[in-house]
């Protein structure tokens, strides 16, 4: 029973942390206004980070879900606003189903950015109201809330095939019949887009199994990002509480502040357990993986939102200003909570996946 990363994973976490700290050394976290994302992406490619879970044959590191989650946690901790999750963590995974490996090679080199186009209507991850269809190799429909959609080179689209079954399709941004409508977002590091497909040519990557697999992975990796963000908010609050004096004492010596911080630690540590166990289950393709991921996403997104909000309360007035970066975490936490299945959605999923019927006493 070893609940920890191996040496390679620890080293990669250090590399990623140092890389992200180096992008913007004067700030405690990466403000999208002050970061040259194009340069950052090229540097990430040079470091080999864009081939993290690509096959070794194309110059990748062939990392599994534990390795990917380990790094996304660090990226979430430093508030990196790149499409790493959709391009590398999910993109490489989904495109491994494709017989044509050019896309994979382009991702590893840093020449191709990918995003997921899944949600429709009001944006429920349940997908029961999905209307996009694929007929004769062409896709018709409209996708909402597409993260980084304006800058993506390739879309991974979930749509219905003949018989109403879900399928996963790749669509190049340059294809005909595709309209991208960029939208500003509350989180400045996560611009959104609405994508309309009117007979756009697409390539099929897989059926319902592939859809389920990449959506589960996306939720797992989003949970890992949230864990990193939650830890960052806790650390910000604790260090401020040690430094800031009022009534002649550090505010961290007041129990009201101490207890806020203790509640944050409880949530962070619980999220850590849930995320690591879910990543482990995914890596070993355990039967209960989806249930573990539902738990991880519910626990970690809740923890991130709680910690970001509580951090603002501990910091007081400064946290309401644009100048202090904690608002970026708060906005991201709200987005991560809602874009990948909010906690009550995850609890319904947990029940559907047998969460109330499974024994407790088995190895985690």
């Amino acid at each position, binding site marked *: *029973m*070893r*609940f*920890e*990363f*191996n040496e390679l994973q620890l080293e990669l976490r250090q590399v990623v942390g140092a890389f992200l700290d180096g992008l913007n050394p004067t700030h405690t976290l990466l403000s999208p206004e002050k970061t040259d994302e194009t340069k950052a992406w090229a540097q990430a490619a040079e470091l080999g980070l864009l081939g993290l879970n690509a096959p070794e044959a194309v110059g990748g590191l062939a990392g599994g879900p*534990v390795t990917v989650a380990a790094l996304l946690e660090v990226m979430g901790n430093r508030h990196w606003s790149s499409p790493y999750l959709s391009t590398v963590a999910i993109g490489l995974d989904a495109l491994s189903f494709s017989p044509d490996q050019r896309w994979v090679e382009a991702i590893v080199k840093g020449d191709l950015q990918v995003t997921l186009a899944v949600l429709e209507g009001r944006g429920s991850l349940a997908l029961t109201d999905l209307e996009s269809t694929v007929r004769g190799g062409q896709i018709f429909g409209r996708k909402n809330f597409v993260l980084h959609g304006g800058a993506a080179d390739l879309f991974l689209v979930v749509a219905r095939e003949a018989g109403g079954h879900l399928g996963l399709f790749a669509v190049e941004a340059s294809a005909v019949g595709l309209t991208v409508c960029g939208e500003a977002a509350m989180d400045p590091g996560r611009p959104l887009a609405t994508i309309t497909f009117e007979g756009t040519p697409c390539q099929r990557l897989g059926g319902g199994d592939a859809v389920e697999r990449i959506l589960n992975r996306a939720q797992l990796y989003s949970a890992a990002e949230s864990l990193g963000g939650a830890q960052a908010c806790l650390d910000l609050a*604790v260090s401020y*509480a*040690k430094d800031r004096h009022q009534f002649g*004492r*550090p505010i*961290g*010596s*007041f*129990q009201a*502040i*101490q*207890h806020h*911080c*203790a*509640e944050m*630690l*409880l949530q962070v*540590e*619980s999220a*850590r*357990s*849930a995320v*690591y*166990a879910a*990543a*482990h289950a995914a*890596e070993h393709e355990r039967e209960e993986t989806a249930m573990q991921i539902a*738990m991880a996403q*519910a*626990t970690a997104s809740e923890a991130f939102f709680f910690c970001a909000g509580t951090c603002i309360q501990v910091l007081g007035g400064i946290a309401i200003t644009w100048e202090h970066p904690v608002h970026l975490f708060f906005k991201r936490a709200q987005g991560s909570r809602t874009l990948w299945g909010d906690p*009550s959605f995850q*609890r*319904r999923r*947990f*029940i559907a996946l047998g*969460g*109330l019927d499974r*024994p*407790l*006493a088995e*190895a*985690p």
Partner: protein
Amino acid sequence: MDLSLQTEDRTFQDEVREWLEEQLAGDWQHLRGRGGPSDEDALIEERKLWEQHLGANRWTCLSWPQLAGGRALSLVQEVLFHEAYAAAQGPGRLGHIGETLLGPTLIHHGSDEQKGRFLPAIQQGTDYWCQGYSEPNAGSDLAGVQTRAEVRDGQWVLTGQKTWTSLAHVADWCFVLCRTELGSQRHQGLSYLLVPMDQPGVTIRPIKQITGTSEFNEVFFDGAVTELGHCVGAPGDGWAVAMATLGFERGASTFGQQLNFFNELQDITNAAKQNGCFDDPLIQDRLAQSWMELRVMRLNAWRMIHHLQTDQPSAVGAINKLYWARWHRKMGELAMDVLGPASQRAQTDGELTRLQRVFLFSRADTIYAGSNEIQKTLIAERALGLPRSAR
């Protein structure tokens, strides 16, 4: 990340399960599921015989060193034992206070004479212990202890009152934190004395609790005596010894407790399905939340065990008490909401139902062994390194 058990641990797990299953299906079947919180008074004499049976088969004091009569088993195997014991509905233990609190204290701080006198009887299930710490005016602030002891005619003589003493009425001995230096303050001048319970100077009065049952007692010392040699550590060093006692709990028993929680939550879920309120989406949401948190609690505990085994500081260990206590209290409330008006109805003989007792007694979970508020202050100061708060 490797969350699977080693082969030797699986073998051990099979051995424990097999033995317990055989015993509890046979001669000891009547003890299955008896005792424990809110049923603590059940079948005391039989349960003592069961503990002696456990001891004779070397299923007590698993983590103690072999020289002290234990088996020096790993923390993981200790966890597996506790899990299997709870899963087999082994009767609520009576000897755990001696086994997990006093035993390790004597192993680390006791004299050879004390070890020889007390450890074998704990291992064999012939001596039972209770803890004499809390007093009416020393609860969360334990350093306010007022019970006094002085040396008279070559022995210690004790005067004072302890309270919330679990299992005092079944115990043969009590380890007592008391003031042995006249006029001393706070942490100074305290001693850690081992006091026999069966004597004229000791009076035990059960405290009838919110459940109508009595797990806790008041213990009065009025000229109670004990031998001069029954002081652990030097006279005056009692505070350090008392704190050491609280640090020995390795966290293995929390796994057994979680299996009991599992059984309770399963009963609540079944009740919801039977009475139809499972169709209520709000009830479903609360059940799912409770189940998720129970699973997270278990994962947290495994991470804590990993940290302990590898000698790392464990932030996740620091939150364990706060987490389970609050979870269990909330589960008790969920149980009542699931039952609806029927939650008010007692059994035909007037006794409370199991879930009613759980609901009521879970209010104590967030108070004893460090209230939620004390826990949060400890987390802030010890795990997060925040400056000490005003006391």
